[in-house]
């Protein structure tokens, strides 16, 4: 990609004039992983939301230099015992290793899927660990915060579970880098094809083993139901009566039925992975992990998808691509995707006006390379967004990242923290159902969820997972002379202005007199302040943004 500098052309016909006044805490809470270092906060204050968005929505490809440096410097421990006969034999390992798989081509990692090679489990599943840790580093440090927020959104929308199937895990770095990150702000039709042809998705939803004759329907069903038109456009009541679906006879059915799933499954037969499979006779696919189209496994006969006839014997890949064209162009896809983005960025109370404007722009911009960025801009500049403060629950990743960014603690990403997030309900790249993590707040604030959310910030404060030590003095912009003053400053830094009462409630719970003299440089006082920080982050105010 040739774009180098930040800054995409601003000016959105759907939001003429000045954007509504939006609190910086809301922007950084929702469109970033919480308010971070002072220069970042001052920058937003100086340039305003519209310019900030223009920058954030057109980042150069790849990481910003500071984040890239941190990723390159990161070391993640790998440790396992020696493998002994009668099982596979290999020496014990305990070392700090760089995140080498992030930039590796898939063919280089593919040997990890070969169970004939003796290897420890942590070696095989290393790619997922590295991508998860990189996700934490980027959430905390990336200059392109909004892209990180959207990458998280898209990883859930196009969910794959890399914790079970070794091939999905080996394909994860490529999926994260070349599919999700490359298209997170781009064009949805391009995005769909990148996903459909990705090794991670081909394994996760089984299309790689789908064959003419008895196609595997797993991918095709979720392509319609989750990736594009959405469950609300599954017209199950029409079963196999496709002609009865409103609009079908004009080639514009208002939704999809099981027959569309069956036919689309046929269209994607032959979309497979170079996994070393035999092709008949002495021919074999290479074992590279790359995408492959195998004509002899493709169902070449005529098909009918969404009321549109496909002629038999189309060129390579044409059937699948035509399905993607049809669904990307479908107004239901525009509504489903833009609505989901609205709810993610605004919360549940989205107005019909915004929903309709976002769907309209999504559809009109469907041939544009920055289709998604345009819709995100429209949402972020809407009055709905401006008045949505506190409307979204932070997921554990956002909770942890906001804590790290808010406290300014030096940060080392570890697998312990990845496990802490999983305990609180967010299994990075390890969520089994293709829905991605639930959108409903109820899932996250169950009794277990609440307890584990509190544990998450407490664990970070205690450096339970080796992520770094919180230095309360660094958090206080001016030295505090009393416990009350320090608690006020902590609450303001973590929760935004107007929340000093939370810090005072914490002190009261700890039975500490707010007038008590305090010196954050003293170990005992620093310890007290760490506890104040952790409890402040356990407050209801910090759970939402």
């Amino acid at each position, binding site marked *: 990609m040739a774009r180098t500098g930040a800054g995409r052309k601003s000016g959105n016909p759907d939001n003429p004039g000045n954007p509504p006044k939006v609190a910086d805490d809301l922007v950084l809470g929702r469109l970033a992983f919480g308010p971070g270092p002072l220069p970042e906060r001052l920058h937003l204050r100086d340039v305003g939301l519209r310019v900030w968005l223009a920058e954030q929505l057109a980042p150069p490809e790849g990481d910003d230099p500071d984040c890239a440096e941190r990723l390159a410097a990161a070391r993640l421990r790998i440790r396992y015992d020696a493998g002994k006969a009668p099982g596979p034999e290999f020496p014990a390992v305990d070392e700090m290793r760089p995140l080498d798989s992030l930039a590796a081509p898939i063919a280089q990692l593919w040997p990890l899927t070969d169970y004939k090679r003796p290897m420890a489990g942590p070696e095989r599943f290393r790619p997922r660990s590295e991508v998860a840790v990189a996700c934490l580093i980027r959430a905390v440090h990336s200059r392109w915060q909004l892209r990180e927020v959207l990458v998280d959104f898209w990883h859930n929308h196009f969910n794959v579970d890399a914790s079970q199937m070794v091939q999905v895990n080996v394909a994860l770095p490529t999926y994260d880098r070349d599919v999700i990150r490359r298209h997170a702000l781009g064009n949805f039709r391009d995005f769909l094809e990148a996903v459909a042809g990705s090794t991670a998705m081909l394994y996760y*939803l*089984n299309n790689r*083993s*789908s*064959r003419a*004759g*008895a*196609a*595997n*329907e*797993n991918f095709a*069903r979720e392509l319609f*139901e989750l990736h594009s038109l959405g*469950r609300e456009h*599954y017209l*199950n009541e029409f*079963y*196999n009566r496709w002609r009865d679906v409103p609009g079908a006879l004009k080639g514009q059915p208002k939704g999809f039925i*099981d027959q569309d*799933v069956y036919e689309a499954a046929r269209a994607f037969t032959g979309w497979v992975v170079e996994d070393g499979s035999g092709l008949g006779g002495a021919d074999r696919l290479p074992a590279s992990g790359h995408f492959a189209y195998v004509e002899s496994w493709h169902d070449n006969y005529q098909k009918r998808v969404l009321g549109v006839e496909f002629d038999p014997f189309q060129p390579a890949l044409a059937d699948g691509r035509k399905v993607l064209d049809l669904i990307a162009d479908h107004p239901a896809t525009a509504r489903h995707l833009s609505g989901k983005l609205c709810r993610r960025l605004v919360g549940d109370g989205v107005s019909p006006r915004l929903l309709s404007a976002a769907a309209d722009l999504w559809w009109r911009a469907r041939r544009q390379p920055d289709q998604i960025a345009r819709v995100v801009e429209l949402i972020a500049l809407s009055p709905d967004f401006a008045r949505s403060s506190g409307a979204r*629950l932070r997921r554990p990743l956002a909770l942890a990242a906001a804590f790290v960014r808010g406290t300014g603690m030096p940060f080392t990403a570890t697998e312990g923290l990845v496990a802490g997030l999983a305990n609180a*309900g967010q299994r990075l790249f390890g969520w*089994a*159902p293709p*829905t991605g993590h*639930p959108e409903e*707040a*109820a*899932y*996250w*604030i*169950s*009794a*277990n*969820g*609440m*307890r584990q959310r*509190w*544990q998450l*910030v*407490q*664990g970070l404060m205690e450096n339970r997972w080796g992520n770094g030590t919180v230095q309360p003095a660094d958090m206080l912009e001016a030295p505090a002379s009393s416990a009350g003053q320090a608690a006020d400053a902590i609450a303001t830094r973590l929760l935004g202005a107007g929340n000093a009462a*939370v810090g005072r*409630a*914490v002190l*009261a*719970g*700890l*039975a500490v007199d707010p007038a008590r003299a305090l010196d954050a440089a003293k170990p005992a006082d620093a310890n007290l302040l760490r*506890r104040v920080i*952790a*409890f402040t982050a*356990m*407050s*209801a105010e910090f*759970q*939402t943004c």
Partner: protein
Amino acid sequence: MTTRRDFLKACAAAGAFAPLAGLGRLAFAAEGAPTPLLVVVFQRGGCDGLNLVAPVNDKPYIDARTPDLRVLDSGERPGLALANGLGSGLDFRLHPEARPLFELYEAGRLAVLHACGLMNGTRSHFEAQDLIERGVVNIADYARSDSGWLTRYLATLGERGGDDRRIAAMSANAGMSASLLRYDDALALPDLSGGVPLAGGKDAAAVLARLYPSGATDPVRQAGARVLARTALVDARLPRQPDGRLTPYAPPGANYENNGFTQGLQAIARLARMDVGLRVACIDHASWDTHDAQPGRFNGLVGQLTRGLAAFHRDMAAAGLPVRVVVMTEFGRRLRANRSQGTDHGHGSAMLVLGDGVRGGRMFGDWPGLDTPRLDQGVDLAVTTDHRHVLAEVLALPERDRAAVFPGLAARAPLGLTA
């Protein structure tokens, strides 16, 4: 009316309680008889009921699948023949990995149902699960059913929540089960082995109580306040050693394996032993979505599920705690396999009902057959029994409560599932 105290005295006199268990831990229906604890096990992903229990000598069944996707009548791993099966001349057998459940069937504790499911043709996991958990058949019914079916069942027992000293419902999953939608007082507790400690040590309760005051109105504060009250309840009842450490849970004879599913089952059994009024518990078992490589995956799933359930059954029986366990899924799978050695989304499937008052050792349901014209859409096992009829009998729901729990459920002759 028999009071709770009278009943307990009678039970104690009859020696019904194992010495381990304290008194006063049973839940009581309004009539005064003990209502067994209801445990709903949801096989997420769509269990291939035709690979779990099947007529092994049925020609259409044999023709449709390779032997590794079938229950077999002979060979190295034959299915376990079920007495009192369905149809005539059909040899229904249970998957060979399900031996622990087969033994419970033989002992008259387990009933097996087939061709059950949702009376809606959806092949979407998420829609099917949602409809089932709300206890309705069509999305149009959401308007009159904005709560989970277990929430409405609890209401028929007078359990509407709001009492900090009770935990009438739990989910042994990380998150809340949708069957308990709008029963906000349910506790999600996937694992009790480490107790329920609060983050932040000895001051945590005091600080968090100020941050999450009871009586708050926003959802997050309310959730926090409930957690504080109910975890304190559980924490106070966890057995401890003299040094204050938790006593590990090791019920004699139960022999739980160690995995996420059995951790959840043990959490249920432990809560059932506490005097907190537990009446329903949900637990998920996953993932049954075997689009590919089914033979190995299915073996593992059936083995883990059945050994877990058998251990739980031993645990509850030893404690003298009445229980009914229902095992259900969102749909069955296609009769014909795909070419990935798997099966795609289908329709009818099997259900299992285990425990006290169950007329076990027999199969229930109306077997529709597997000839193509008898199949739903020409491809899937038809549903001849609305799964809600099964649930209504398991709950022993009085007629007047049926419509409340399962809106629109038509009347039908009882299956006779419970004594």
